């Protein structure tokens, strides 16, 4: 499950708030930060979870696509590593 700081960053990526504790009631909005409601805050946990799941799905799909392209060239991920490419 998403954490409170992730939800806050999701809802207000430009900051402008302080949260003491991890509840909506502990949030103080600064002047430049448009407040959001408790309902929006609570609903955002699911939205962040969904975004994280989608990011994982996209990452896996991108990997599969890249591997398919490599295979079409007769290469593998190990071949790329041998060339000093492809990370650790």
């Amino acid at each position, binding site marked *: 499950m998403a954490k409170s700081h992730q939800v806050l960053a999701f809802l207000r*990526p430009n900051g402008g708030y302080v949260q003491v*504790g991890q509840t909506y009631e502990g949030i103080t909005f600064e002047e430049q930060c448009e407040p959001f409601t408790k309902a929006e805050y609570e609903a955002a946990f699911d939205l962040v979870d969904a975004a994280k799941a989608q990011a994982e799905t996209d990452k896996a799909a991108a990997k599969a696509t890249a591997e398919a392209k490599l295979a079409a060239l007769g290469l593998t991920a190990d071949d790329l590593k041998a060339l000093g490419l492809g990370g650790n």
Partner: protein
Amino acid sequence: MSTGRLGAGDTAIQPTIVDAKGDLIAATAADTPARLAVGTNGQYLKADSTASTGLSWDTLPSSGKVLQVVSSTTTTQTNIASTSMTDTGITATITPTAATSKILMIVSANFYMNRGSASVAAMALLLRGATTIADFEGANSAEWIYVNSGGATNMEYVGNYAINYLDSPNTTSSTTYKLQARLGSTANSQTINFQFGSAPSTITLLEIGA
């Protein structure tokens, strides 16, 4: 129980060897008892080979000793996404017993920073009441925390930073010390979470006698 005097030839300690409340019986040599007069209130007895009885009373040193200790632990997560100085929740209050005392602060601040960028930065102030006594912000924008990974698109940084500071509050009034912090920038979703996930931060105040 009855008491009485022994004869002159008897080998026993006479009650007249002591003269006052608190007097002790010591020895100046083998088989040679002697009176050691009581010390003054608060003194301690120490071995002292220069004294006739090998013992003497002395007074504890009045300076450099710890007069009291105040310690506070907080686990309340405090998420700061602001460039304004904000209380971190790390605070403690002490009432010095003497105006000449010094206060030694030992702070351990737990934090988690994250940002969708290669670097994270935060500034901090240590305050006595409303007075800044240690400035990790500064006119030159020096940072308290700064990490740059170079080229990363996301940065997470977890730490327990210590601050030790010796203050001279010059008061016997109740005095509150606290740590405040702020971000260098809120861009790229940067935040700093103190007591992240309810991890403890502590502040300990030691009053040191002058």
